[in-house]
């Protein structure tokens, strides 16, 4: 048993901490590279749009931020389910590490959407199903952060927060399918797994920007997770050893 490869080993903060530390620079580098390529394609190569002119280019921020805002929530809900079922230490830390970035993405999605909506639709905001459910997502992120911050015992905070995450997960399919299910001002999705109604260079620019946002999210979430680990495990031997070591 001792010699067998064990996946649970990586769920231990003592193993995860140095591994994450080594991985972070790579994710940052990948984020920068994807971002430069995406911005180059999106801002310089991709053609103007037939109905929105140059204004559509905010899509290269808006869509990746919106995708990530939904996807990060799903990942957090996944960690919450694992944490509640298996009582693992790492899962709560990961959920908490992802939350601020998720909130940032939801905010970016709403903000760029408002900036885009005014010139194209004629309004900053309208209470349609897509916009309203995305706003609820932002509130769920903020609510999760407030709830976990309000409970002193981290394990209990993780449990309460995890429950909120799992209850809120029904909102994600509502956001995604809202434009299909109801009459909304927001148009239907341009891209899904099987079809795209965008010109090829526009699409590739957007996908590269999405990769850039993904890599950024992973990098900052790992940084935050490392800080949370040190804070929560400050009384353990591995943290003491880690902090006594000269700076690497």
């Amino acid at each position, binding site marked *: 048993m001792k010699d067998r490869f064990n996946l649970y080993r990586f769920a231990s903060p003592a193993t995860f901490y140095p591994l994450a530390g080594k991985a972070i620079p790579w994710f940052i580098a990948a984020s920068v590279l994807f971002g430069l390529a995406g911005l180059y394609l999106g801002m310089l190569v991709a*053609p*103007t*749009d*037939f*109905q*929105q002119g140059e204004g*559509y280019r905010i*899509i290269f921020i808006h869509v990746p931020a919106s995708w990530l805002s939904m996807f990060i929530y799903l990942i957090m809900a996944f960690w919450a*389910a694992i944490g*509640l*079922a*298996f*009582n693992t230490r790492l899962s709560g830390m990961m959920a908490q590490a992802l939350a601020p970035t998720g909130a940032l993405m939801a905010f970016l999605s709403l903000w760029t959407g408002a900036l885009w909506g005014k*010139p*194209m*639709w*004629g*309004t900053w905001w*309208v*209470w*349609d*199903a897509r916009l309203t459910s995305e706003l609820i997502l932002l509130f769920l992120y903020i609510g999760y952060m407030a709830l976990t911050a309000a409970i002193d015992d981290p394990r209990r905070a993780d449990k309460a927060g995890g429950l909120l995450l*799992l*209850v809120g*997960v*029904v909102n994600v399919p*509502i956001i995604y399918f809202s434009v299909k*299910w*109801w*009459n*909304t*001002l927001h*148009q*239907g*999705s*341009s891209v899904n797994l099987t079809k795209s*109604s*965008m*010109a090829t260079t*526009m699409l590739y620019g957007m996908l590269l920007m999405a990769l850039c946002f993904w890599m950024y999210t992973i990098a900052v979430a790992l940084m935050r997770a490392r800080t949370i680990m040190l804070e929560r495990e400050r009384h353990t031997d591995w943290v003491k050893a880690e902090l006594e070591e000269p700076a690497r």
Partner: protein
Amino acid sequence: MKTRHKKLALIGGALAILGIIAALVLNALNSNIALYISPTDVAAGKAPVGKPFRIGGLVKEDSVAREADGVTIRFVVTDTAKDITVNYKGILPDLFKEGKGVVAQGKMTEAGTFSASEVLAKHDENYMPPEAAKAVDDAQKAANKHVSPSSLSQPKASY
């Protein structure tokens, strides 16, 4: 069954029940969630009486006209089945165009027209360069020419 598997099943079951509840609630709220109703819905009497509401559809081709006062705009919103004439005094969004989507908020007048206080443009999910849009447009026009029976009597386009 181990405790953790029991817990996992419990979480899965709770999520499924939550999903069903959400689906039922949303289904019950259906008409309240919709941002706008179509001219067909208005014709069927589904519009709220004495209360402002939104209609949505396409701006009918060749229907946009300015009233004599120079500021009131009149156009027809259609869902291809039913039409509603809309009067609106104000600034139109840039993407407001004949044949494109529109959402208007306002009230029905006694004359059976819709008096709008706000007009918003609803664009579609297609993004392409103008040349590609023109090519698609031309191809559609050409296809219509070939399939429509009325084109048989028309002289052949010379190209």
